[in-house]
Structures are given as C-alpha cells and as structure tokens.
C-alpha cells in the first residue's frame, strides 16, 4: 500500500511541478506583454522586485494621485541629498543663471526639440504641494511648479511603440520611468520650489518630480529626456543608475 501511495504522490508532485512551471512560463509571457517586468528583474532579488512593481503598476494604473497638502503643511526645513554637479559645463551654465541651458528631448519622438528655461516657463504649468520621501527615511513637504511631462510629450509627439522615458542629468544619476508614470498628471518637469526658482541643491535649473515614487526618482539637474522602447543600451541596462549602486529601479516601494 505504501508503494502505491508513494507512486501516486510522485505522480501528483510531478504533475504539480510541470503545471507550476508551465503556469510560470505563461505568467512571465503575459507579464512581459503588459509591461509588468522591471528592467532590474534579474538576480536573486528579481522575483520580489518584479512582484512589487507588477502589483503597484496595476494598482496605480488609473492615475491615482499622490497625496497633496495645504500651504500650511509646507516644511520649513527641506533636507538635501547630494551636491550640485561639479562638471565645468554645469558650473558655467549656473554662473549665467542657466540663460544658455536647454532641455533636449529626443529618441522615439516625431519632432525632437530642445527648450530653454524661459520657454518652459511659458508652457501651461501645474503647481502641487507634495511630500518628498527619501529612501533613507526622512521626508519633507514642498510646493513644486513645473510643466507636466505629458505636455512636453504631446509637443514632441511620442511614438506609440515607446515604453520608457529616460532622464539624463548633469551628474551620473540617470533614471527612467515607464509610460504610465511618464503620462501621469503629477509628473512634472519642475522649475520652481515654494514659489522660488529651484535652488541649486534641489536640482537647478530643472528637476523631475515623481511624487508617487521615492525621492531618488525625481532626477535633479536635468539635461536631456530620451524616449525609447528599450533601456538595454543605457548604462548597464538596468533602467537607471540606481540598481548599479544597489537601489531598485522602481521606487513606489
């Protein structure tokens, strides 16, 4: 009797294993098709990262808005992370008030373009009071003003096959967003903080604001935005410089 039991067990286990493997393969295909696999899906932490990204991507699909606050809740002290870029080009642009600075927008777009700071300020703007939450644990609330990235995307005509927007600053901390977060109405190309020009330590002249993710996704010191259908050709192909330093690409946490 015990032999037949063990044989039945073996067959059940075998079938369950085969079914599980087939199920996983189908799930991976579907996940890839619906853009649920983050660029840093490989390695030992890949499964957890993929589950987190897939769940939050689906959960936030209907343009849920990050919490917004009242003017009275704006923090008096806004902690700063990192120093402005030391590159000569950035220093020269900063010395002249970024009058010669231009934001290049290229890649998978119908009309590549570049915009000066003055031109950006003439575009329709959005002002939002949101919380910046740092991966280290601290946070502050500030008012941010800028052009919704969606407006710029409409201007340059982002092609339908585009999957990511990649952001390159004057320092090495490049990053990228999926199209869902790129089109999100709270995703800003921000040029002002608390009613003033963006201070140098907070990313002058222009930074990205992505309030549905941790602070490090809000790339500072922007120089170029590139639209693409793959992130493989940038850096180590992990979607941003963050995973190269051990931090996840997706930061909705």
């Amino acid at each position, binding site marked *: 009797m*015990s032999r037949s*039991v063990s044989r039945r067990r073996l067959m059940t286990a075998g079938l369950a294993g085969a079914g599980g493997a087939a199920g996983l393969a189908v799930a991976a295909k579907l996940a890839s098709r619906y853009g649920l696999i983050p660029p840093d899906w490989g390695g*030992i*932490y890949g*499964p*957890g*990262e993929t*589950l*987190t990204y897939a769940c*939050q991507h689906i*959960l*936030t699909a209907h343009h*849920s*808005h*990050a*919490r917004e*606050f009242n003017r009275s*809740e704006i*923090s*008096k*002290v*806004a*902690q700063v992370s990192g120093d402005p870029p030391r590159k000569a080009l950035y220093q020269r642009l900063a010395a002249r008030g970024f009058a010669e600075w231009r934001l290049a927008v290229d890649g998978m777009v119908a009309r590549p373009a570049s915009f000066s700071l003055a031109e950006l300020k003439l575009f329709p703007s959005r002002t939002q009071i949101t*919380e910046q*939450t*740092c*991966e*280290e*644990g*601290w*946070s*502050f*609330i500030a008012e941010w003003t800028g052009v919704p990235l969606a407006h710029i995307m409409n201007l340059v005509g982002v092609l339908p096959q585009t999957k990511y927007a990649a952001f390159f600053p004057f320092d090495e901390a490049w990053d990228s967003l999926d199209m869902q977060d790129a089109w999100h109405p709270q995703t800003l190309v921000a040029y002002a903080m608390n009613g003033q020009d963006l201070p140098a330590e907070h990313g002058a002249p222009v930074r990205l604001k992505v*309030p*549905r*993710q*941790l602070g490090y996704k809000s790339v500072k010191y922007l120089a170029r935005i590139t639209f693409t259908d793959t992130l493989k050709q940038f850096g180590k192909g992990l979607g941003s410089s*963050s995973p190269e*330093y*051990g*931090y*996840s690409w997706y930061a*909705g*946490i």
Partner: protein
Amino acid sequence: MRKESESQPALSIAVIQSPHLGMADSVYIPGLAVGSPDFSIAPRHSAVVRVTHWIATLSFIGLLVSGIGILLAHPRFYWGETGGLGTPSIFDLPLPFMLGGPSGWGRYLHFESAWVCVLNGLLYVAAGFASRHFQKDLAPRKREFKWAAMWRAVASHLRFERFGEESALSYNLLQRIAYLGVIFLLFPLMIWTGLAMSPAVTSVFPALVTVLGGHQCARTIHFFGTIALLLFVLVHIAMVWRAGFWRRAGAMITGRLAVGKESL
C-alpha cells in the same frame, strides 16, 4: 474530550490531542504509539505548520537584517507627516548614519523577504482556518478566561516552573495569546505600516497613512512593531530552550514528539 486528556497518559493524549488528524504525513498513523515502552511518539505539528514555520523564520531573518540596513541610513525617528535633519526628532538611536550603504540592498532584500513572509503567512492562515487549527489548538479555552486561571499561568511563568509534559502537546494560555497576537495583530500591523510608507500604495489608499497620523508616524510605529516582534522571537526561543531546545525544534521539523510516560 480535551478536558479529560490532560490527566491521561501520553498514549491517550496522542490520540485525543492530535491537532492535525488527517493533515500529518500519511505515512504516519496518528495516535499510534511506537518505540520503547518508556515513551510514545505523539504527533505534534502538521506539515503546513512545520513548513510555514521555517519559511517564516527565514523571511523574518531577511526582514530583520535588511530592516536594520535601511534603518542605518537614518537612525532617527519623528512623529507626524514629515521629519529630517534640522527638524526635531522624538528619539535618536545611538547608531552611525550610513549613507549610500546597506539601505540599497536592504530595500531589495526587505521587499523580497516581505513577499515570502506575506505569501507564506497567507498559506498558514488559510490552512489554519481550514484545518480548524486556530479554533481547536490556539483559541483560548473558555475555562482559561477566569482570572484565577490566568493568574496561575502568569505566576507559573514568573516562577520559572518546570514545564509539565502536557506542555509538549498543547499550548498554555500565555502561548495562545502570544501566538494569536503575533499572527492576527502584530503581523497585520507591520504590513499596514509598511504599505503606509509607500507613496504608490497611499496614492490609491491614502487612508492607510492618514489614520496613522502621517508618513513619519507609520515609520515610527513600524519600528516599534519590529521591537515587539523581536521580543516575541527572543522569548519564544528562550521558552523553547527551557523546554528542551533540540527536542522541541525537532518536533517542528519532523512533526513528531517523543513523550515520556513516567514524567506525566
């Protein structure tokens, strides 16, 4: 039936108190006493309980180590919505600020361990209800809800009394309260306060964080929840140690426990 069982010899305890009839290994026939006449082998933990116990152990270690890694980036706590350097804290841990270090892999490991912990926990809870493990073995019994019984349980722990052999096969009141509290209060609180720190999740469910009083409240409560879990684990290990570590840990691996007849 259970009431009688505690004063019965081990063999009948094995039969009557077997919490997982039908769930244990099919090779093993529950209640059947084998071995030398000095002891009998009693079924103790079901396969689901054993497997989920050790997966939970691994994921807890992962969560704890990575949680400390994340904490080291900013070992300072605040109350309310916001907080950072230059604003008043409610307490500072005497630890160094380690920037650009363990909080990176810490986050990767924390969320991977959290997924393992949550999925494993869901399996455990579903199986626990389906097999009536919670209702039969963990829900405090009515007669224990008397003050005298509660006091006796607390006093016997405080006096460090030797555990009776019946403790090997059943849970006492304090164990029941501790286990149920960890499973149904502390773990949900940790998941809640963890999700309340996610800007993506709170964009969909803002009440998760607003009812706690803000982002920094969620972080601080998450920290105290960790302390509570850590205390539970330390007391749990100490109690298992007192009861005979290898014998009890062995029961959580094999599912069976040798129960001496003489000691009853």
